[in-house]
């Protein structure tokens, strides 16, 4: 007999958003995850942010799984995360890691929180009596908290803890706690866990101006705050009140607000020769929000060095911030802030646009503080016994941002890679989950095998009878205050209630069996369970019900104590109980009229289709193929490799795309799971997740074939843009960066005797006409070429005319290197573009120098243009074949620019690489891994269970007006021309109910939320006053 395979287990260290995302993606495939965090709770930095660009809203919940929503508790992510396969362990630190790949033993120090969340009744009476007040670090000291406190105000469960540094051990809290949840003697505990793989998602330490030498020049007043503290000033759970931003020093409204960029970053003197990547967008968002939320008269000014709007949609957001919201941008590195006697903050700056010095006063100064990564990286390197690279960072494999070099089964994601925005945190989290999944597949670890509980059938013709089961919650004394006998008697008065059962405890092991015993005796066919924190236990409770013979769709759970306590101050036991009885009536009626839901499993075709044979496509294909997924790789040209793999020999960071492409091609062709289709395009597609049928057309022969597949990854890439500006194409001396790169590599362009080389950045980019976006890689290309020229001819003078140098993150070091090498960077603005004319056969470039404020003329021996990256035109065809969106620039439009960067609204469709937006090679490979993982989550199984609560069509009532099709935000509804009917993709449907609102005739209805149920709920609620009257 074969040995039972172990269940794959992964430790994710760090429960910020990238760690959470990695955990969710692994859990969805079916692996067990231990998610730890050093702080008392989960959520990381994002727990502090109420608003994220570009929507200026929260959206954390959008990282939750879209298919089979009911199997992974969908809940507000800022409050908490619940998943059967994820064990969350906050307040735990990794002390040591032993063992090797596939067999790690991790020593965890679980810090004492002194309050047991499983016993806590959350009434917060302990907080009220605590005499100690200290600054609340969650709000960056803007507010105070007690020694016993809830670290994140919106957490559920509340997860109280005691800050022992502040606690005086007076014992007041212990006295008032009726549930015995507080233990002041609690000790830290050590625990050793065995895991197969580890994902590091700890993030990095952030720069704190007050801790460094900058403190004297900048941190001169409480009104100088960090950008993260400003987020708390914008939050109603922070210090935001009355529609105004309050100044910390005196609580007066802050009207004139300045942001100073690059605090602790881009500073070679301080040995921080890197950019923190996210601060520019962070500041822009805060500046816009301040204008919107700060009441009338708010002025937002950002002092910056380069406004690094390199990501998708970033430039557009910057343009809107300036043009629509009136945010002031001033290019100046401010050298300090001075506090005036009246508290005002003075900033002196030089404005290059007007060429003048200014002295201005501000109410509030926000410092855009970035990362200080070295400490965190060193700590991990020591713990894991791995090396650091020359920069002092954890060394990853050459083409990977995720895989730690020389340590199989160890991966990093999120801000450990350098500070990341939400989108990159998501991509990297998914990619890390993908790498871990590949690793687990490789060592033969298994997924969790679910206990199969057969689903009892529901007889809908039977008269509905509701059994109400109330959990007494045996060991939780918090349940005092409800008179169970009275509640039971009251509920039995309702016509639709068949019986009321009182269960000792649902959640404890023996309680579960007892509950099943009691409930199996029933004559009722519907079950309503009253328990605490139903969002945590819902799935468990449904399993109990199923064992007792209830169809799980006819089981509802409500929060017994929450319902009772609503709006009641100091109620008597009787009042409390009666209130509960009245509130529950609506739940009873909703269940009474609920139809049984039938969940059908979607069969999954295991084939994957990958469109595009560049790096993104090849990487996705290989990633899936080595896990045993059959892949069809479709490339429109005659060879694999894409633009980069066929044209670029070397990149600025020392990668060799052409050689790498050769290597990958070989692997692709050698892999028996991959079928390559060259000169081939997808013409049309029908179907949904798990069963697509695509028509492939071969360009040479004109032949067509049909391919059945379960998912698709679009990785169509891009190519260097074209321009007619600056005489490109009219002279051999004018060329693009791509042409120069090729010429330098092949030796066709000889620079040994060249004197002046002028490079112009952003040609046809970041402007209203042409490419509105930043192509992200051109600055690095220009620097790479410039350095190459300098290497060949140190006497050559290279001028780079730029608008903003986009060497974000650790690319900054190449910018420094270029300047050290004597390459001359000169800034120009869009309203004063460089001009060129040919004089005696040579290009002469004229432009305004902003430092000298003079017009400069340069005669160039070579004029090199950075013409940006264009998306493939074939995107149009692809987008219409798969009915996905394109953005205005021709790139594929992902489902959500922040939280779902790899997916489309329709499930089963994914994107990677430059098809999304221009990006460097390593990012392409990371996205490709992420896309492969998203697809693998479905392709690894034979079927997928969708949610039961999905929208349905009552065909007999449907008039085919298709208004529901137009209104569906998830593209889940479509009109089937052949069958003349509306069809719903149950995997895509998120049960938002827009269709049900739109349909005037109830032909569109969300199962489990029918009008009949809702009318009954409304009636029950309106009955309240009637039923309250007999209560005296």
């Amino acid at each position, binding site marked *: 007999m074969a040995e039972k395979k172990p269940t794959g287990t992964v430790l994710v260290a760090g429960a910020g958003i990238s760690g959470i995302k990695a955990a969710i993606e692994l859990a969805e495939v079916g692996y067990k995850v231990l998610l730890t965090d050093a702080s008392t709770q989960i959520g990381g930095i994002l727990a502090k942010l109420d608003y994220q660009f*570009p*929507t*200026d*809203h929260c*959206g954390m919940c*959008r990282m939750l799984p879209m298919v089979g929503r009911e199997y992974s508790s969908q809940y507000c992510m800022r409050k908490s995360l619940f998943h059967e396969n994820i064990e969350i362990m906050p307040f735990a630190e990794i002390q040591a890691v032993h063992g090797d790949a596939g067999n790690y033993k991790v020593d965890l120090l679980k810090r004492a929180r002194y309050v047991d969340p499983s016993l806590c009744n959350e009434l917060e009476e302990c907080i009220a009596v605590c005499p100690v007040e200290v600054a609340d670090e969650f709000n960056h000291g803007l507010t105070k908290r007690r020694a016993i406190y809830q670290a994140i105000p919106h957490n559920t469960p509340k997860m109280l803890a005691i800050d022992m540094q502040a606690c005086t051990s007076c014992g007041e809290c212990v006295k008032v706690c009726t549930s015995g949840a507080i233990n002041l003697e609690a000790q830290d505990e050590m625990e050793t866990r065995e895991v197969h793989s580890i994902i590091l998602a700890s993030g990095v330490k952030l720069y704190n101006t007050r801790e460094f030498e900058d403190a004297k020049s900048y941190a001169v007043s409480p009104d100088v705050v960090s950008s993260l503290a400003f987020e708390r000033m914008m939050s109603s759970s922070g210090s935001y009140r009355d529609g105004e931003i309050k100044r910390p020093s005196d609580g007066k409204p802050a009207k004139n607000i300045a942001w100073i960029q690059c605090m602790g970053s881009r500073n070679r003197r301080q040995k921080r020769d890197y950019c923190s990547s996210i601060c520019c967008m962070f500041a822009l968002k805060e500046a816009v929000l301040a204008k919107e939320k700060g009441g009338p008269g708010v002025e937002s000014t950002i002092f910056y060095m380069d406004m690094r709007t390199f990501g998708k949609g970033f430039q557009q957001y910057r343009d809107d911030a300036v043009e629509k919201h009136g945010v002031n941008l001033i290019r100046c590195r401010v050298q300090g802030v001075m506090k005036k006697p009246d508290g005002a903050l003075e900033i002196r700056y030089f404005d290059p646009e007007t060429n003048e010095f200014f002295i201005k006063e501000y109410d509030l100064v926000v410092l855009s503080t970035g990362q200080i990564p070295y400490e965190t990286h060193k700590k991990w390197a020591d713990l894991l016994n791995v090396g650091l690279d020359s920069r002092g960072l954890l060394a990853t494999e050459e083409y990977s941002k995720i895989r730690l070099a020389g340590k199989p089964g160890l991966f990093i994601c999120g801000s450990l890679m350098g500070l990341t925005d939400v989108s990159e945190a998501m991509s990297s989290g998914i990619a890390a989950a993908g790498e871990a999944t590949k690793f687990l597949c490789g060592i033969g670890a298994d997924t969790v095998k679910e206990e199969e509980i057969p689903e009892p059938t529901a007889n809908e013709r039977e008269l509905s009878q509701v059994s109400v089961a109330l959990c007494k919650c045996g060991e939780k004394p918090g349940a005092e205050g409800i008179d169970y006998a009275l509640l039971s008697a009251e509920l039995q008065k309702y*016509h*639709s209630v068949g019986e009321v059962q009182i269960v000792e405890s649902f959640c404890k092991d023996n309680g579960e069996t007892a509950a099943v015993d009691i409930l199996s005796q029933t004559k009722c066919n519907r079950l309503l369970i009253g328990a605490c924190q139903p969002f945590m236990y819902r799935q468990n409770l449904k399993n109990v019900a199923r064992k007792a013979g209830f169809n799980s769709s006819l089981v509802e759970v409500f929060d017994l104590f929450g319902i009772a306590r609503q709006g009641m101050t100091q109620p008597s036991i009787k009042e409390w109980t009666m209130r509960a009885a009245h509130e529950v009536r609506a739940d009873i009626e909703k269940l009474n009229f609920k139809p049984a839901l039938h969940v059908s499993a979607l069969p999954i075709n295991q084939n994957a289709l990958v469109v595009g044979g560049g790096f993104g496509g090849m990487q996705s294909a290989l990633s899936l193929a080595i896990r045993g997924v059959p892949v069809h790789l479709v490339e429109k040209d005659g060879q694999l490799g894409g633009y980069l793999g066929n044209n670029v020999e070397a990149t600025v960071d020392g990668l060799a795309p052409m050689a790498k492409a050769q290597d990958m091609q070989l692997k692709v062709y050698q892999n028996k799971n991959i079928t390559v289709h060259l000169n081939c395009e997808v013409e049309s597609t029908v179907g949904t997740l798990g069963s697509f049928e695509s028509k492939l057309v071969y360009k040479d022969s004109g032949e067509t074939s049909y391919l059945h597949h379960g998912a698709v990854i679009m990785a169509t890439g891009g190519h260097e843009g074209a321009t007619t500006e600056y005489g490109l194409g009219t002279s051999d001396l004018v060329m693009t960066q791509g042409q120069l790169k090729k010429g330098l590599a092949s030796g066709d362009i000889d620079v040994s005797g060249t004197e002046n080389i002028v490079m112009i950045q952003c040609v046809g980019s970041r402007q209203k006409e042409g490419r509105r976006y930043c192509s992200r890689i051109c600055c690095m290309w220009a620097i790479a070429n410039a350095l190459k020229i300098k290497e060949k001819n140190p006497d050559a003078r290279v001028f780079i005319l730029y608008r903003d140098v986009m060497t974000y993150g650790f690319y900054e070091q190449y910018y420094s290197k270029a300047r050290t090498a004597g390459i001359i960077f000169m800034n120009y603005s869009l309203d004063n573009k460089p001009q060129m004319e040919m004089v005696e056969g040579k290009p002469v470039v004229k432009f305004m120098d902003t430092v000298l404020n003079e017009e400069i003329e340069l005669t160039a021996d070579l004029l090199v243009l950075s013409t940006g990256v264009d998306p493939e035109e074939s995107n149009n065809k692809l987008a219409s074949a798969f009915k996905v969106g394109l953005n205005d620039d021709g790139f594929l439009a992902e*489902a*959500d*620019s*922040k*939280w*779902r960067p790899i997916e489309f*609204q329709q499930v089963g469709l994914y994107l990677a690489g430059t098809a999304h937006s221009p990006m460097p090679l390593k990012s392409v490979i990371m996205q490709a891994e992420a896309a492969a993982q998203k697809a693998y989550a479905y392709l690894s199984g034979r079927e997928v269970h969708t949610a039961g609560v999905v929208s349905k069509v009552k065909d*007999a*009532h*449907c*008039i*085919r*007006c*298709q*208004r529901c099709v*137009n*209104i*569906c*935000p998830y593209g889940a509804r479509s009109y089937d021309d052949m069958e003349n009917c509306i069809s719903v993709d149950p995997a895509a449907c998120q049960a*938002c109910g*827009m269709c049900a609102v*739109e349909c*005037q*005739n*109830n*032909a569109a209805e969300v199962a489990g939320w*029918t*009008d*009949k149920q809702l*009318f*009954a709920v409304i*009636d029950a609620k*309106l*009955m309240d006053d*009637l039923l309250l009257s007999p209560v005296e």
Partner: protein
Amino acid sequence: MATFAKLSFNKDELNKELSGFFKGILENGAVDAVLAPMAQGKKGVRLSLVTSAANTGAVDPFAPVAAVSGAKIASSLTARPSGRKVAMVLRPCEIRATVELVKLKQVNLDDVLMIGMDCLGRYENTDFTKFQEQGGTSESFLDNAQAGKTATGDFDVAGACKICEFPAADNIDLRLCAIGSGSGAVHIEAVTEKGKAALEKSGVKIGDAPAGRDEAVKKLVAVRTEARDKKFAEFRAETDNFQALGEKLSACINCYNCRVACPVCYCKECVFVTDTFRHTGDQFMMWADKGGLLKMPNDTMFYHLTRITHMSLFCVGCGQCTSACPNDIDLMPLFRTSADKTQAKFSYQAGRSVEEEQPMAGFEADELFEVTGQAK
């Protein structure tokens, strides 16, 4: 420049002249069928579908009656298209309802030659019978109505027509003009190229525009608009509280005739006849408990309010709801006053244009970005 044909007729020969035109467009292949009001023997005029030129003799487009809304017929004929070209002769209110149904994908105008007639009002069905019995004809009606005399004996044109500010049709290919054409003549105006081609094919003589038409239409619209505003003010005053509204509707017996007659109430089967409203005895008892008593049949007010929420954005004010009520509830002002406000909220006018998107019919990503995460 619009093209006109003048049809002069001798007394009692208006319909004979008009039938010549319809015969012409059928014979010369401009269309394969004509849907037009036609006399049914001696009594009654109903929309009829004619496919042979020989059967066009009974056309009577100007007869002041509209037994059912032609928009519903247009839907029957074209929702699942026949592929044959059909000319439809409809009143302005019917055309405006048709425009709404196009947007709801219940009418397909691809093969339709739309002919709109000037409308001076219609009598209720029973009144039209009396009108015919008293010897009234379309010719006499046109003459009298243009002189402002629509009332005959104890009846007058429908309330909806008296306050209708759309006597002339739009969104059409051809227009049958009576207003301002002078006694003894009507005009046919080609509005679109398609209309012009059909007019030329019909064989009628192309001539001049009716001289006084624009002025006459303007005057009529002004009179009706004033009447409308007066009616609105009156009705709003009469129904300014829930109880007053309840009294207006108290005669309702849930027969749902108003919904059947409404041209824009386009559902196949109304939600009010589905399971959703099949209540249990327990529920009736509960409501009786709650309110002290429960009027039966119940849900009458709920039904009318639901229809207002569903239809007021599309309401064209044709008044068929009032005409259909067996208990003489005047529903038209209820719908028109609410439509007046709801349509204004969206700067929308039901029936104005096929291109104008119906309010709240499409998903706006930037309107609901907290749901989608997509910002424009």
